[in-house]
């Protein structure tokens, strides 16, 4: 399977810059998720790799070969589209065979390859059905099989799960990961769903305004976001804007930490709701419970605390069994360990 290298890819649509000098290297066999909000350029990037968009500048290399000027049909890629995009006049079998026919593979090899793929995506019993006779999940599996039919070096998936309901989405995302690992195929997966990105990726590239803000493993991204945008975009996170005094940030006993080298008068402190510690022994800062939301295994408490002349609102997740006795209006003692907080300049 081939590696993918994107070098200084730039793409404009009129005056709008969709991709801005973007660079990305994906080793062979890795699954990289492009994560970002609408309009950040993730689909444009995917389409540039596919050859469906021609970058204004930059190079696309697949397995070391420059394919920037190569037509889509000659690129060693397979692509899965958001809307399944199966050919409606062909059966599942014919859809999967189409890339093999287009590449003029001999009939006997076509047949055996189609059977292999039908087995891989568990669509054997539906092989002779038309797309309109399949569920959404089955259609997307057929679409995946079609993308893999010609044994491409790179698999491109453009929000492949966004049109599916939650349960099917979760099942299919596990299946995509299983297939990707089985085939060890280099994969670029576009999504705006953080949970999906975290669950499926070897590495997640967080995109913003045509650039990659951060690329890291899901755990790194979750635990140690390197930019303010990554911190605010990935996962549920509290953000408190606090003044910086003598190289320290203080918010009563909720948080007190040294922040060396931060050249700013105010800072944004990010911390996760599960990192809010509830004191058992009276140590900590008093915070009033404003509301309580049961979420199954966890209960979310919306808290308000006052310190240093400031009022801070944040939320905390607590195992539901522990939250059972807490009610809105109660006061609890809370604190945040400095190692769990990420600090960025407020004007950054």
């Amino acid at each position, binding site marked *: 399977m081939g590696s993918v290298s994107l070098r200084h890819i730039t793409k404009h649509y009129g005056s709008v810059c969709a991709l801005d000098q973007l660079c990305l290297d994906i080793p062979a066999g890795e699954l990289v998720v492009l994560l970002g909000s609408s309009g950040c350029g993730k689909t444009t990037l995917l389409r540039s790799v*596919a*050859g*469906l968009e021609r970058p204004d500048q930059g190079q696309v290399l697949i397995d070391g070969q420059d394919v920037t000027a190569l*037509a*889509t*049909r*000659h690129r060693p*890629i*397979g*692509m899965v*589209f958001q*809307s399944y*995009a199966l*050919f*409606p*006049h062909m059966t599942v079998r014919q859809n999967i065979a*189409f*890339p093999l026919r*287009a*590449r003029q593979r001999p009939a006997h090899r076509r047949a055996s390859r189609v059977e292999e793929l039908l087995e891989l995506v568990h669509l054997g019993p539906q092989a002779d059905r*038309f797309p*309109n*006779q399949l569920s959404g999940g089955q259609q997307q599996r057929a679409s995946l099989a*079609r*993308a893999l*039919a*010609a044994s491409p070096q790179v698999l*491109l998936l453009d929000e492949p799960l966004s049109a599916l309901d939650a349960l099917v989405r979760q099942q299919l995302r596990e299946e995509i990961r299983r297939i990707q690992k089985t085939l060890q195929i280099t994969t670029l997966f576009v999504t705006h769903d953080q949970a999906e990105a975290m669950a499926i990726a070897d590495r997640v590239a967080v995109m913003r305004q045509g650039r990659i803000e951060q690329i890291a493993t899901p755990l790194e991204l979750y635990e140690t976001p390197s930019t303010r945008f990554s911190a605010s975009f990935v996962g549920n996170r509290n953000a408190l804007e606090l003044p910086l005094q003598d190289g320290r940030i203080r918010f009563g006993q909720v948080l007190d930490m040294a922040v060396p080298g931060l050249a700013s008068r105010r800072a944004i402190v990010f911390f996760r709701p599960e990192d809010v510690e509830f004191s058992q022994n009276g140590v900590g800062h008093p915070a009033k419970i404003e509301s309580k939301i049961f979420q199954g295994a966890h209960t979310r408490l919306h808290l308000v605390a006052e310190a240093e002349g400031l009022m801070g609102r944040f939320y905390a997740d607590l195992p539901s069994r522990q939250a059972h006795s807490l009610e809105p209006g109660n006061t609890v003692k809370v604190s945040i360990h400095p190692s769990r907080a990420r600090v960025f300049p407020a004007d950054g």
Partner: protein
Amino acid sequence: MVLDRRRLPSLGRGLLLAGLVIYLLLPIAAVLLYAFSTRWTSHLLPDGYTASHWLQALADPRLVAVMLRTLGLALLVTLLDILLIVPAIYWQWIYNPRIRPHLELTAAIPFVLPYVVIAFGILSLSGQFLPAVQGTVGLLALSHGVVAFPFFYWAVDNAMAAADVALLNEVAKTCGASPWRSLVQVILPNISVGIATGSMLVFAVSFNEFALVQILVGARYETVSLYSLDLLTGTNADFNKLAVITMFTFVVVFTLSALSVYLNRGQGQTRRLMIGSRSKA
């Protein structure tokens, strides 16, 4: 008898529908009866009935020739429109969406200008640049192709929109298909109903057209409409035969229109005419 108040609206609708059907069918029924009548003088119905007008019409070599010419012309025009317009609309959808307003504007022209004006325009233009084509069937076929363009354009354009040909084309490309394979094996099967519908409409327009035939070729290429005029106004006027021809033309056009409606039933559905293919639920 007291009428149920709740039934009144449905009774009103029924009466309205019946009135409309009678209004539409009465002229057709009258022509049909006239085509089978021996004489029709002062009564509500013909004095007597005969099939001799039909037998005579079918045995008339001039009428058979007229029918074949009209059929040939309509088929030629249909083929021309398919070959010229399908690639143009495909080009618009895939490569150059910016030409869409121009195509839409062009499609409006035949509705805005009377056919007589279009005919004299074509006559003037061809006389200036290509005098050799004046009076030829080729020029007539091209002209019919132009006036039938909107019917074909909208049918095929709607089919392309319903099939999302831009997406299908991209998918085909990522599958490694050449533009030709993509067009033939992916796009055309998915817009076949639109092409069929448009073709039927083009055929019907050409089959029935009078002004362009009269002005551009006249008696050199007599079609059904010219022959009908001759039967109506000539010294050897034969109204019964005219009724036969009118019925024949009506049946052809009505059948094509009904087929067109049948193929397009169910809005928003992508339907195909390929053998073994299914309609989208």
